[in-house]
Every structure is written in C-alpha cells, then in structure tokens.
C-alpha cells in the first residue's frame, strides 16, 4: 500500500541533500571539535560553518547561535537560562496557554519553585494579542515566552508586535519557532526577538539537534554543566553530524521558502475545502493567520484516535487531538484553550503537509476521511440521524 505522510508537524523526513552533507561526519571526519589536532580542526571548521548557516538563515551573527539537542532543550535553556541570569532581581514570567509543553511545563515548574507566572488565555483562534502581553508585564517581569506559530492548530502569533511591546517595556522576549522555520521569514536583526528556539527535524533536518538564538548581551546562564562547549552555555561533545545537518537544512529551508509556501498553501486550502464538505466538520485555528501546511479539524460525533487508526489503515499518517493518542487522559490543552468542549477536542485531526505531498494525495485523503467518518459515525451512539 502506498503510504501518505501528512504529519510533518510531528517530524519530517531528512532531505537527501542534508544526509549527504552529514555523511562525511558520520564516516571519515569523526574528530571532536575540541581537539587541537587535524581531526579536531576539520570538525571545528564544520561546526563553525554550520553555525554560520543557521545564523544566516535567521539574519544574526554566528556567536548568537547555541546548538542544543532539540527544540525542547532550546526552550528549557531559554527560559531557565534567563531566569538564572536575572533572578532574583526580578521574578515574573509570562507565557500563553497554547505553548508547547516544553515551554508551558517549564514555566509551571518555575511557578512551583516560587516564581510568579502568568499564563495568558487565547482567543477562539488561539491568538495572544500584544495588548494582553502589555497588560501582563509588571516591573518584576523577566521574560515573555510566546510561540511564533502553534504546532497543533497552526495559528501564527503576532510575534513581532509582541516582541515590540517587550522591547519597549525592557523585558526579554523568547519565541518558540520550532514550527515556524521554513514557513515564516526571520530577520532577527530587525525583529524584536531576544531568544528563539528551533529544532532541525521539523524542517527536513535530523532529529536530536536544535538551536537557541541568544541575542548579544542577553543575560543567559547555562542550565547544565560540563566542558566549555558552546561558549559554556551548552556543554557536551557536539553532535557534529547533526549540527552539520541542521546547518544544511536551514540553508535549504530558507532558499525554498517562497516556492514551498505557495505550494503548501494551495494544498492546504484544497484539503480544507474538501474536508469541510463532510458534514459536521469544523476548522480549528485561525482561518488566515495560519501555517501554510497546517489543517486542524474537529469531526463531530467521532473520536480522534479511531479516526486516526482508520486512516492509518488506508495508508494516511496524521495526528489527532485525542486524549487516547498520548496515553494521557486529557485532550489537547490547545484545543481546550480555544474553547472546544471535551468531546469535540477528542474528535480532532491534525494534518501537517510537507513539500512532497501532492494534489492526488489530498483528494485521496479527503475521500478516505469521508469514508472513515461515515463508518465510525455509523457505530457512534452520539450520532443518530
């Protein structure tokens, strides 16, 4: 059976060009960048080059990039790192209810540790407004962390405006851009962002490597300890093949962005149109301010995991907002935050399209969803016509 992958928000395939860039560092160029000898020097050179590529992709200086093991670590380092850098002079952190757990749970942990925290609610589209942020900032605020674009419902936040508010108030602004790289233009020399997280495997790079952009002079301290790597901000022998892959993936993501964006928007809109023709299907997230490849719908009267299983049997890979998906009992905190009831949140599907999806796949998928929905509704006690 042909398989159709529509879960690029979970992870993407590694691009061939990226693997090609990595392979020498998985083979003969195995030196440790900290070593002085020739093996070490060729490794160091590759590390420097990858850093330049990531920096170029964001429009910043290479010294402002800290490599991490992924988006989760970048988010933790950003938040805990500035808190360590600034506390106890100030003690307040602001975030939103729709952040990824890597941000939300970190902030909640700091709340348990005695920090003051504010978790901003969102509107029905999952948006935080700059005004909300402005009102929440106090003279004890260290940091505002609001994501660039939401991983579940695709809503793009007004991050530049939020950043501008933070800058005006003299508060650090961190944005989790894990889902945004390759979709949104960044030029951080101009944009009021102090810290930005990214993760390579979300844009056709390797798993297990990410980066944190740390604007010069930002008071950030390391959160774990060891050798002097990454200017002491992130110790440990560098994942050089991964970092080289991240550099190459960034380069390609930026180069392909205009073309990819156009294609994804076309596919996305075709998918939305098809899905909304199925009875009792509703789009979640912002209708316009949304990631090119993201489609999130609630399918009333059916449960998400069974939909997902049914579609998987037809070769289609996607995610659901179902509780049962993650083994946890609660449905997606994002869908709850935008005001869905429990049952509607449970019956949600997330399609995240990628550069290799096709029109035919979209059409096949719409048909498959229709059939699976019909099949499950026929067995649903809450759907009776």
């Amino acid at each position: 059976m042909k398989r159709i992958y529509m879960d690029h928000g979970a992870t993407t395939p590694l691009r061939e060009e990226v693997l090609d860039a990595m392979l020498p560092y998985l083979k003969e160029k195995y030196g440790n960048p900290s070593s002085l000898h020739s093996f070490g020097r060729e490794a160091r050179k590759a590390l420097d080059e990858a850093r330049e590529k990531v920096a170029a992709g964001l429009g910043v200086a290479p010294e402002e990039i800290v490599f991490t093991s992924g988006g989760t670590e970048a988010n933790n380092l950003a938040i805990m790192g500035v808190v360590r850098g600034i506390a106890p002079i100030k003690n307040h952190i602001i975030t939103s209810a729709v952040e990824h757990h890597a941000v939300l749970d970190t902030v909640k942990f700091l709340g348990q540790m005695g920090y003051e925290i504010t978790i901003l609610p969102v509107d029905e589209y999952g948006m935080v407004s700059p005004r909300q942020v402005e009102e929440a900032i106090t003279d004890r605020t260290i940091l505002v962390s609001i994501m660039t674009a939401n991983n579940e419902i695709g809503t793009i936040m007004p991050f530049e405006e939020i950043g501008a508010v933070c800058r005006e108030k003299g508060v650090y602004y961190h944005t989790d851009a894990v889902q945004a790289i390759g979709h949104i233009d960044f030029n951080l020399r101009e944009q009021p962002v102090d810290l930005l997280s990214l993760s390579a495997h979300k844009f056709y790079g390797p798993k297990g490597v990410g980066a944190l952009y740390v604007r010069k002079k930002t008071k950030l301290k390391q959160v774990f300890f060891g050798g002097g790597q990454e200017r002491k901000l992130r110790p440990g022998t560098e994942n050089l093949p991964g970092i080289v892959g991240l550099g190459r993936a960034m380069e390609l993501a930026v180069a392909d962005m205009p073309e990819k964006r156009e294609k994804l928007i076309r596919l996305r809109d075709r998918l939305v149109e098809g899905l909304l023709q199925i009875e009792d299907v509703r789009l979640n997230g912002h209708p316009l301010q949304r990631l090119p490849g993201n489609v999130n719908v609630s399918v009333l009267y059916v449960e998400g995991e069974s939909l997902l299983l049914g579609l998987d049997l037809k070769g289609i890979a996607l995610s659901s907002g179902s509780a049962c998906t993650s083994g946890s009992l609660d449905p997606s905190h994002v869908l709850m935050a935008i005001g869905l009831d429990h049952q509607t949140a449970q019956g949600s599907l997330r399609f995240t399209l990628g550069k290799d999806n096709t029109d035919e796949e979209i059409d096949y998928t719409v048909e498959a969803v229709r059939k699976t929905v019909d099949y499950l509704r026929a067995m649903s006690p809450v759907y009776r016509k």
Partner: protein
Amino acid sequence: MYNEKVMDHFQNPRNVGEMDNPCGVGEVGNMKCGDIMKIFIKVENNIIQDIKFLTFGCGAAIASSSALTEMVKGKTIEEALKITNKDVADELGGLPEAKMHCSNLAADALHKAIEDYKSKS
C-alpha cells in the same frame, strides 16, 4: 501498538448497530476518556440470543465492544454476568497499558443492559 486481533475487531467489528425492540439496553460513558458505549441485548429462555453495540471511542474501545459481543452471544445471563473487563482484554490478547481504562467499559455496559433487562422482566 495494538495487536492483530484488536485491529481485526476494529476493522471488522462484530454485531455493530442498533437493535429494534431490545430486551435490555446498557449505556456507560467515561467522560474522562471520552468513550461512550451502548449495548443492546435480546434475551430468550435466560439466554442472550442477540447482542449489538454502538461505541464512540478509541480503537481499544471499539475492539473491546466487538469482542465482548462475540463472547456473550449464546451465553446465559448468569454466565454473561461473570464476564469482567479483564476477560475482554484477555480475549483480545491484551491491550496497551495506557488503554486499559478505555476498554474498561464493555463489560460494564453489558452488566447495565442485563440490569435493565431484569428490571423490566
């Protein structure tokens, strides 16, 4: 995640649908997991002659309902009452740890249907 038997029940659920004039109906809903299950039974001579189900829920919930109906059909009321949620999971060759709570409904729904039948007869 799910074994073949579970997937078979999910893909080819046995005894799915509503029943006209059932002798007993049992409905349980676990709003925590979001699952809702409805069991219909037809009883003659103390024997469950027919059984049907409707389920809103995850794969494990659907497969459990289906498996339960197969286990129950033709059994006496007393035998049926002895079936536990664990029996259903065992019949399916086991369910993932995280899913045990989802399938902990099928036997409950059956027991309710039997109660309903008893209360009417």
